[in-house]
Each structure stands twice: as structure tokens, then as C-alpha cells.
């Protein structure tokens, strides 16, 4: 990407199409799509709900460590399609007790929102 935010063809890096809804709602939709994909790997009685309160990591969560990493990778990929930039969700170790934003869908969406709005080191998709 060029310094002015355009790519080598001179086009602007695309802004997320939020269809009039907030960036946060758009990110929530992306995460729900990821939940639907990860649910295919889970037994029926352990599938995650599409809700901001769904627990991703810690007590009450349905995902083991492999499931969470699969969820992260799928979400990063979908965010790249949605935002047009790649966002690294594992810059901080998601399994560290000090990394609190993986606790629920809502806390992770909030974290992604912050990253998306303040993306100083953003790279082209």
C-alpha cells in the first residue's frame, strides 16, 4: 500500500460495507458466521449460540484450545474480507490470563472494533 492509503493501482483501501449498521454490528455478524463454521466441528450439545454473551474462553466456554484457534483463524479471514485489511487477533497470546478480550463474543468484538478503528500498522489485504 502506498503512504496515502491507496494500493499500487491508486484505488483506496476498501472501507467495510456496514449497510448502515455500526462497525460493531458488522463485526458481530462476521463473528456469528465464524461461530456457524466452527459449530460444524462441535457435537450438537456443545454448539455455540450466536449471541454477544457467548463465552469463547474460560469457564462456561464450549471451545478447547484447537477450537479457539480455528475460530480465530476463520474470524481473521472473514474480517479481512469485511474490512479489507488483515487484523491479527493473536498479537497478544489469547490463552494468557492477562488477555481478557477472548472471554466473550462481545469482548472480542469490542477489541476488534478498536483494532479496526485504530489500525496504524494496517497492511493491505
Amino acid at each position, binding site marked *: 500500500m502506498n503512504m496515502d492509503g491507496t494500493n499500487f493501482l491508486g484505488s483506496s483501501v476498501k472501507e467495510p460495507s456496514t449497510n448502515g449498521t455500526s462497525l460493531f454490528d458488522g463485526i458481530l455478524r462476521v463473528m456469528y458466521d465464524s461461530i456457524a463454521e*466452527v459449530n460444524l466441528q462441535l457435537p450438537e450439545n456443545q454448539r455455540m449460540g450466536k449471541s454477544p454473551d457467548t463465552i469463547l474462553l474460560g469457564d462456561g466456554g464450549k471451545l478447547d484450545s484447537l477450537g479457539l484457534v480455528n475460530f480465530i483463524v476463520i474470524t481473521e479471514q472473514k474480517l479481512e474480507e469485511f474490512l479489507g485489511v488483515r487484523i491479527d487477533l493473536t498479537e497478544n497470546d489469547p490463552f494468557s490470563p492477562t488477555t481478557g478480550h477472548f472471554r466473550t463474543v462481545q469482548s472480542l468484538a469490542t477489541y476488534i472494533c478498536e483494532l479496526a478503528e485504530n489500525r496504524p500498522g494496517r497492511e493491505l489485504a
Partner: protein
Amino acid sequence: MTASNTERKALKLYLISDFNLETMGNYFVNGNSSLQMSVSSAPFGQVFPALLQTSDSPLADFAVVWTSPEIIVPSFAESLNHAAIDEDRLLSEVHEFAECLRKAQKHFRAIFVMSWTLPYYRRGNGILSLKGQGSRKLLLKMNLKLAEELEDCESIYLLDAQRWLEAVGKNSYSPKLWYMTKARFHADVFRRAAREVEAAISAVLEGSRKLVIVDLDNTLWGGVVGDLGWQNLKLGGHDYLGEAFVDFQKALKSLRNRGVLLAIASKNEESVALEALSKHPEMVLRPEDFAAWRINWNDKAANIVELAAELNLGLQSAVFIDDNPVERARVREALPEVHVPDWPEDKTLFASRFLELDCFDSPYPTAEDAARNQLYADERQRARSRKTVNSAEEWLLSLDTECTVEELSDANRVRVVQLLNKTNQMNLTTRRVSEHELQRWLGQDSRKLWAFRVKDKFGDSGLTGILSLEMKSGMACIIDFVLSCRVFGRKVEDAMVAFAAEYCTAAGLGELRANYIPTAKNKPCFSFWMSSGFSYNEKENRFRWPLSKAYPFPVGVKIHRSATATGDILHSQPQRSPHAEGAALPVFTNSD
């Protein structure tokens, strides 16, 4: 293992890999497959020890072996580091891996081995990667060598992993997944691989679909022939949609060449539709390409039932393709056994959607499969001849049926195992076995197995019957009594019983028994045995015949030893049927 056991128990799947395959295992267990599976894994990275286990008992029903080329073939790892390597050594390392797979065959009914791949970002030496010792060129050689080494292993299937990677695209390899979980691929690759392995297992267990029933208007061609006339249909020409319909017809025709039958279920005037099929200059499929059709204004589900019955196929053999979602929903609801794939609205996707269907995968390419269309043409002629004679007995006599009896050999083993594993209706015990299990079972002198080839004046039905016996304590028990519905009802079943009785009498045995194991589908076999003249013990589900009495060969069926034996006609004299007089011939309504 019996089918009833298979139906009750989860299939055991064993995963062997040098990377983390747990995500794939989760798809097997929790996905939407109709197969019930339990999955276990070899210790991580222990590929060779897992393949070389010395246990005599089977480890699981099926195994998946998915490895990294740079780990299994050390010379390839060196080449990735741009070191000059000895290619003979590289290929001998592939050979060693293939030998281990070969040895592991005894532990499983089938082994699915994934071909080797590299991530797209491994450019190797760039523009030279397909020259000299370029990494892509070496990888092609390694996969080819592996395929050739495994060519004669009938229970090992090499699956093309590159297809799943291409479908997923640049995300197929995720460095993040590798560093954090040691999974080599994205979950979507594992999902596609699991789906393909499930389809392969279904093909091994149940055989593949054998009949495609297609709609006409806006499915086989663009437009409504009754409104437009055949001259104005969108088909071929300098038109992108016309070309798409031609390609879809070509895809159907290619499947016909593999032995899958084509049929039509269309709401149309029959004469108008057939005129279009006959006269349109760019029509790829002509009336003679279809085994049967129902072109009328009746309910399509009812028409499909009729088509399957006419072709002696079960509904579980059928696939229905229609552009109309209402018709698809109707057939799905009324006939859940029929596979009704989702169909794209975009007509340019018809051919590609059809070509990616996995329900036609067959684990055993046999001459009978390729000749199936001819077999059905023979059957149509046979059925027509039936209308010209007065009685069923007279008709059977007019067929000049001949059975050739063979022992198990390299030449017929594939077909015998195929028939044994996919026949449902005329199957006494529904025993399902792999080639290795069958060979092992036949390792005792007290056990015998014969295959029956059947032909008549209308054509050769091929290897369609299996009879096996176990002899002990002065009596013999029929273990397998299997007959394809292609020939069921033509007294071949009587001839098989008579052959068994004659053999046992010559062996000095006193009694012949048949223990019937009921399944959801083998009632026709029970009906046959109930009319066989054997005494029946309901409590034990056992049929018995005292060999002090000769069991008569059926009228009009000749039995020969195969050419590898004496070639003598064992029995060709018309005999009285042991069936009760006036007993109806067995009715077969679906296929095996």
C-alpha cells in the same frame, strides 16, 4: 462382520499423520454424515510405527494416512533447502513408505492416503520449480511414484488432496494454525477432506449411485420445448447459455460411459420431448442414451418410483436433477432415499455442479460397471420377450440360462468382494468383508466359495452370484448366498442351492443348512428360502435339507465349471423344481 453389526456399531476410523488431524476427526464425528463414526488417532508423528504395527487383529474399519512430503521423504526436505539430491534415493524413500502402507492393509478394510502437497507460498526456485530438481517437479514425481506403487493395492485409495486446497484457495495453509496447533491446513480443507473420505467409505460399504434421472426443460436445455418448439431451444450455438447446456449434457454422457444409467422425468408431451431429443442438431444426448423415461404430466415422485422399478434399481441408487426447487422439494420429501442435490439457478454452473458430485464414486472399476448400459438394454429385450410367452415357466425355459461356476481367483476377486458388500436383497447373511478378510476366511479347507456367472440368449449378466459353505461335523452350513437382482427370479438361485447340495452330497455330508440373518432389506431372500423346499425352524431362523434326498436342479438352467476347471457340464437335464406348485416367482423391486 455382518451388515446388521455395521448398522448398529459406529465405524471405526484410525487417523495416522505427522501433523494435527484433530479438526478433521471432529468433522467425522460431529458433521452431517449419515455414517456413524468413532475416531482414534495414532500417536502424533508416529507414521511408520503406526503403519507397521504387528497386531493380527484389525485396528479399525478404515484408516486415513495424511503426511507431509518433507517428513516422509527426507531427500525432499533436502531439496527444499536447495541441496542437490539423489533422485533414485528420493524415489526409494517413496517406495519404502508405499511398502509400509501395503503392510498396513491387513489392519483395515480400506486405507485412504492423501496425496502430498505444498503450500502455494513455497515457490521453491521460482521459474525453475518445474525444471531439474525443482521442488514442484520432484513433488509431481513423488506423487506419481506413490500412485504407481499403490496401483495394485485394492484396499488402498490415493486421494487427491490438491483439489481441496484449490477449492479453499490461499487460506488452505495457515501458518498461524501450524504454529499454534500443528495443524497443517485450514479447517475448511479438513472439512472437504472428511466429506470426501465419507463418500469413499459409503462407496466401499454401499456402492455408488447408478441412475441419474433428469428433467428436460431448463435443465437439459434452455426454454420450454412445448412452448418454443425444439428449433428454438437454447442449446449449443453461439450462445453462452446454449454452450453451458451442451456441456451439462456432455457431463451426463461421460457418466453414462462409466456405467451410470440415465433416465428422464419430465412434465411434457412425450412426443414433443422425444422429437427434440431426436432432431435438435446440437443435442448431445439422444433417446437411445436413456435407459427409460416418464414424460407425462404425473407427479414426478411417482414417476421416479416407476422408473426405478422398471430398471430394477432401488431408490437408494437414484439421483434426481431438476432446475425447479418445488419439484426437488417434492421428491426429497416423498422419496428420501433418492439423492436430490441442490441445484444452482445459474445455468453456467450446471456442468461443474454435476461433475463435483461424489455419489457416483466407485471403489471397484469392473467390466460389469462399464457394461451396465448394455446389461439394461438386454434386460429390456428380455422383459419384452416375457410378454410374448404364456407362462413364467415357459418364459424361463425360453431364456436358455447358463451358469458358470468359478472358484475365487485373481480374475474375479474384485467383483466377488464388490457383490458381497453391496448386495442387500438376495443376501442370506449380509456378511460384509474386505478382500483380506475373505482370503483369511477361506484359509481353511473346510470352507468353500464359488462365484456364479450367468448368461442367457439375451446377453451376459456377468458375475452375479456367490455361494460359500462351511463344513463341519458331517454337515454344511451356507455362509454366503448372494445373488444380484439382475438375475434374481430366473431360477439361478435354485441352481445355486442344487449346486451346494450336490457338492455336499459328493463330500459325504448328511445335511445342508442355511441360517438366515434378517436385515431391513433381505426379505426377498427369506421368501425364496421359504419356498425352497428346505424345512424351516422359526426359532433358530434356520433352513435344513437332508442330503439323503437329492435337491433337484431347476428346469432349463445349465451349470458349467469355468474354463479354468474341466469345462464339463455338471448338470443340464431339466429337473423338477422343489418349489411348491403355483408358488409365485420372487419379485424384485429394487437393486443390488
